[in-house]
C-alpha cells in the first residue's frame, strides 16, 4: 500500500477569483503580509502495490485523463513520505 498525492493547480495565466477572494479576506482577519493566494485541489490516491515507476506512470495518466483539465490546469504527482 502506498499513497500518491496529486496536486492540481490552475495554470498561472488563468484567473483564480476564489484565490483572490481568500487573499482579500485575510487582512480583514488580521493576517498581513500576504501578496497573493491561489487555490487548487489535492487528491490522495491509495494504490494497492508499491509506488514504483510503473504505478506513478499510471497515476500520471489518471491525472492527465480525469483529475486535471490540462487546458487550464497543471498537475504534480508525488509519493507521500
Amino acid at each position, binding site marked *: 500500500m502506498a499513497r500518491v498525492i496529486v496536486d492540481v493547480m490552475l495554470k498561472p495565466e488563468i484567473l483564480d477569483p476564489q484565490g483572490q477572494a481568500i487573499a482579500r479576506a485575510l487582512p480583514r482577519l488580521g493576517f498581513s503580509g500576504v501578496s497573493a493566494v491561489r487555490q487548487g485541489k489535492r487528491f490522495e490516491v491509495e494504490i494497492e502495490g508499491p509506488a514504483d515507476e510503473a504505478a506513478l506512470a499510471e497515476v500520471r495518466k489518471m491525472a492527465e485523463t480525469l*483529475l486535471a483539465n490540462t*487546458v487550464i490546469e497543471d498537475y504534480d504527482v508525488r509519493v507521500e513520505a
Partner: protein
Amino acid sequence: MSAARVGVVTFPGTLDDQDAARAVRLAGAQAVPLWHADHDLKGVDAVFLPGGFSYGDYLRCGAISRFAPLMDELVPAAKAGLPVIGTCNGFQILCEAHLLPGALTRNASLHYVCRDQLVRVEQTATAWTNSFASGQEILLPVKHGEGRYVASDETLAALEAGGHVVFRYVGGNPNGSLNDIAGIRNEAGNVVGLMPHPEHAVEELVGAPSTDGLGFFTSILKNLVNT
C-alpha cells in the same frame, strides 16, 4: 416525410432536458430522449446536450459526464459531422470532451448569474444558427456560476481568425469571458456550444424574455431538410 429526430441527452443531474425536448417539439421535430448510460444514439439526426449540474459538477463541470457510455458514441459521431449543440452544462461537457477548444471556469465575480442577456450572433454558417442574420442581437436567459470562457492566446487567436466565435455578450459580460465570448463552434460548424439557454426562450407564455431561442431549432430543421 417523417419529422427530423433530435436527441436530448439526460445525465444524472441534468435539469433542462424537458425544456429542450419541448423546444424541439415546438419547432416541429421529434424529441428523442437519450440516456447517459446507453451506448445508443438511436439513429437521431442531431443531438442537444442540455444544461444542469450533471454529476453534481463534481471535480469540474462536465468532467465526469465526458466519460459516460453515451459519450463514447457521441464523440466519434460529432467528429464525423453529426450536428451537436451544448448549452450551459452541455457547453462545459463539449469542452471537457475536447469537441470544442478551451474551458469554462468560475465566473470572475464569483456570483451565480441569472438574468436575461443580450447576445450577438457573429456566425450564421453553423448547423444551429443559419436561421439568424449575421450580427443579429438576440435575448436569451443565462444562469450559471462557471461560464467564464478561457483558452490559450493561440487558441483564442485561432478562434477569432477562423470565425469560430459564434456568440458574443452585448451590453455587459456576465462572467468575465475572454473577448466577451458566449459561444463557439468547431472547425466544421456542426458542433456549437454556448452558455445562454435558447431552450428557455421559445414561448412567451412561460415568461420567457423572448422567443429568439426558436431560431436554433428552426436552423437545425432547415439544415436537416436540406441535406
